[in-house]
Structures are given as C-alpha cells and as structure tokens.
C-alpha cells in the first residue's frame, strides 16, 4: 500500500486538474445538476466499503461496515436517480407548431 502512495498522490493531483478543466465549462444553468451529479460520483465510496467489507471483522467492524454500506448505497443510487430526474426536465423551446396545439 505504501509503495503506491506517491502514485496515488500523483493521480489525485492530476484528477483535480482534469476536474477544474472539465467543470469550469459547465454553464450556470446546470450548476444544480452538476453538483448533484458530482454527489453521485462521490457515491463511489461504496466501492471502498465493498473493499473494506472483505477484511473487516468483529461486531464493531460489522456495524461500521453496515452503516457505511447503507450510506454509500443511498448516496450512489439516490444521487444518480435524482440527477436524472432533474435533467429530464431541461427541455428546448417547443417548435411553434406544437405550441399552437397546446392552446
């Protein structure tokens, strides 16, 4: 684990830079879905919980893992679901013909 520590720091810094680059192009209109989408991405913590569950032990360990699994799963499932629900609402201006029909 220690051998890859410097490698992980490298990845961290580069990912930060990629994040700054990609996210600064997102328009203000989409900032709420962006934050909600980023929220679902940190649901990746569930991957960590799965790894943790493979070597954890003892009552305290199991309780902590159970809570962490519930937290992580709520984060990842709820995050993607609500972001999708939000983005579904962003629609283009309907074509004038369709507007006539509505009224």
């Amino acid at each position, binding site marked *: 684990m220690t051998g890859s520590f410097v490698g992980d720091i490298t990845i961290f810094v580069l990912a930060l830079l990629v994040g700054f680059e990609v996210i600064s192009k997102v328009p203000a*209109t989409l900032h709420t879905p962006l*934050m909600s989408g980023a929220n679902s991405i940190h649901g990746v913590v569930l*991957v960590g919980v799965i790894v943790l*569950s493979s070597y954890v032990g003892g009552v305290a360990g199991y309780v902590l*893992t159970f809570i962490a699994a519930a937290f992580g*799963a709520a984060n990842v499932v709820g995050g993607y679901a609500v972001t999708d629900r939000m983005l579904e609402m962003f629609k283009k201006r309907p074509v004038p013909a369709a507007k006539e029909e509505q*009224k």
Partner: protein
Amino acid sequence: MTGFEQGVRFFSLFGAVCFVLGLHLMNSPATARRGNQVSAFGMFVAIVATIVDVAHGGSMNSTRWIVLILGSLVGAAVGLYSARKIAMTAMPQLVSLFNAVGGGAAALIAIADYNLDPHLPAGTATATILDTVIGCATFSGSLLAAAKLQGYLSQPVTFAGSRYASTVALALAVAGGGWVIAGAHSIGVLVGVAVVALAFGILMVLPIGGADMPVVISLLNAFTGTAVAMAGFVLGNPILVVAGALVGASGSILTKLMADAMNRSIFNIIAGGFGTGGSAPIEAGPGGGTVRATAADDVALQLAYAQKVIVVPGYGLAAAQAQHELRELAALLEERGVDVSYAIHPVAGRMPGHMNVLLAEANVPYDQLKEMDEINPEFDRTDVALVVGANDVTNPAARRPGNAVSGMPILDVDHAKSIIVIKRSMASGYAGIDNDLYTDPKTSMYFSDAKKGLATLVAATKTLVA
C-alpha cells in the same frame, strides 16, 4: 499484482473515464442527461468489478456478504425513495443529505480500517486522519445545513464564544491527528478525533445565515469529495482518489463562483453573519423618494403591450411555489408576441443553479434562461422588467461604495424602461438595507404574495383583447 487484479484495475479505470466524460457532457443541457447516464454506467461497472474482485479474493464469508448486501439494500431503497419523492424546491436539502452520507461513509472506512490495524505508515495515517476529520465534519455540518434548509432553524445561531469553541474543536482535532500520525496506535484517540470533528462541523454551520447556503452546500460538497479521495488513500484504491478529486474540484469551483456572486470571501461567510467583514454604516439611497403602488389590471396592461419583458425571479418565487403561475403568465404574453426571457442571478435560490431547475420543472425552455452577464446589456432595450421575489440582487446601491451590498454583482434591472416589482411588503432583503430600485420613479410596486399575484395577473391578462 496478479493478472486478475490488473483486470479489475482496468475496469476501475474505465469507470473513472466514464466519470470524466459524464462531467464533460454536462457542459450543455442537450447532452447533460446522457452525461449522467454515462457516469452511472461507469459507476455500475466499477462496483461490479469490485464485487467480483472481493469474491474472487476468497476472504468474503457469509457474515461479510450479509453485512454488505443488507446495508447496501437498505441504503439503496432509502436513496431511491427520496430521489423519486423529493420536491424540486427541496433539492438543496437532499444534496446536503447525500453530502452527509458520502462524508460519513468515507469517515467510517477510515475508522473501521484503523480499528483493524492501527499500525499504519505515516502517509496512510495522515490520510486516515484527514478522512476522519473531513468526513465527520462534513457529516454533521451537512445534516445541520439540511435541517436549516428545511426550515428547522430559520435564524443563524450564534452564542457567546461560539467562534472560540470551534477554534478549540479544530485545535483538538489537529492535536489528536498529530498524535495518531506520530504513532498513538489507539482507536480511542481516533474516535476522540472523530467526535471533535463532528462538533466542529456543527459549530461551523451553526452561525451561517440562510442566504449564504449556496456557498455552504458547495463547500461541503468539496469536503465530501476530499474525504472520499482520502478514503482512497487509506484503501490504496485509485478510483476513489480520482472520483474524490473530481468532486473536490467541482465543489471548489462552485464555492468560488457563489462567493464571488455575493462579493464575499469564503472566510467571511464561514466566520458568520452578513457584513461582519466590512463595518461601514448603511447610508440612505439618493433621493429617498416615494414608492408607487400599482394594481393588477395596470400591470397586466403594461406587460401585454410591451415588446420585450425580462422576468427576474428570486427565492421569494420558489418559496411561494409560484413558478408554474409565472410560466403561465409568460406563455400568455408570448402568445401576444411579447419577447420574454428570464434573468437568473447566480445566487437566485438556495444552491448553485437552483432557480434554473425550478423553472425547468415549470417547463420554461432552458434557452430562455439567461445568465447575468448575458442578460445585463439587454435591460437597456427592455420595456418591462418584472421582478418576482428578488431583492438584494437587483439593488443599484451595490454600485455605490459604503453599504452592505457594495460591489456585489447585480442584475441591471434599473436600466429597463419600466420596472414592476411583485413583493409582499417593503421589508428589506437578507442584506438588511433598503432597495433603491423600489423608490426609482420608473418602478411600480405590486404588493402581493408571488403565487396569488401572478395568478391574478394571468386572469387580468386573459381579459385583455389580443
């Protein structure tokens, strides 16, 4: 590393690439939904690959499987239910809650890992401490922020020595953290650090006022990302590091944008209270003129015979749940050939971009939603600016030095040929100062609740012959 492990790493890499591509597709409303789906697919692949990996590793026993699966099912059910049911006005609360559980899970990983083996090299121990402190502070802070957004605590809470208390909590966390890194090898010390970090999270959010919530949510979002990245260091798992860094970057950018939009420093907001940074006295606006009240029929007439109308929605609109009435009025005006667009200030709402989501929910096409820099030059050619539930972000006093909103970027509503403000009373906004716009000779005030007022306007507009 065996060939199998390498295979799993490749699938993780695929997941990370999907996250970046997903965020990239968010740069346009037309592709954003696909972006979210790409990101979700990447997440699915990463999770399945990890499950296959631990199953293949052979260390999973039935207890471990049950704990993992049961916990995940409970969480997934709760997450899915709240995602389906939540009202769009309550979005900031939900995002806050997801921040809380994400940060909490990250902290629990560090604590459970340390509980198993406290003999960590200094690098991993540092990550453990950062994960615990940031994760716990995010957990309690986000829960409190969600409670505040829900309206359980409407006033910022300050008590004598609250700043002193949060400094002490932070100092204790740093001291305990140093001890762990230096080799305390004791789970007790780490739990102590977790407890003071929880206290620090609460003390940090407690004094922050409602209008600063967009900044606070963004900041807590950045914190969660960082905590998850630290969990990645603890576990030596690169996909957590990448995903955490991406969220950290996104949260930081939004925090800065929000703070800039209110012309306040992040430190000033965390330190609490509006205007505590600059103690300049509030001066009255020029003229101190009279306020002109108007009636629904006059407003309807003015709007219906205008060529160009810009609507300026604020949080008051969302609080009154009046976005659908607003859309109805705009549709009526458009049928009459009026050019309608919406001017959205970056902090209109309770989180970044919140107003856009609320209007999108009311079926306002996104190409009518204009950002501040884009719309400001258009006010000069606008017949009527209709301000609904927005206050401080329209105050021309921001252009003068020496008051609570000085220097704050505002919408140039006062450049329009005439201005109509729908507002319940003359009460001042969050900044606590009078709005010069209301005493402008071009302004008429239509005193009403946003929902009722807009419904009345819709009815009045319908009676006008096209």
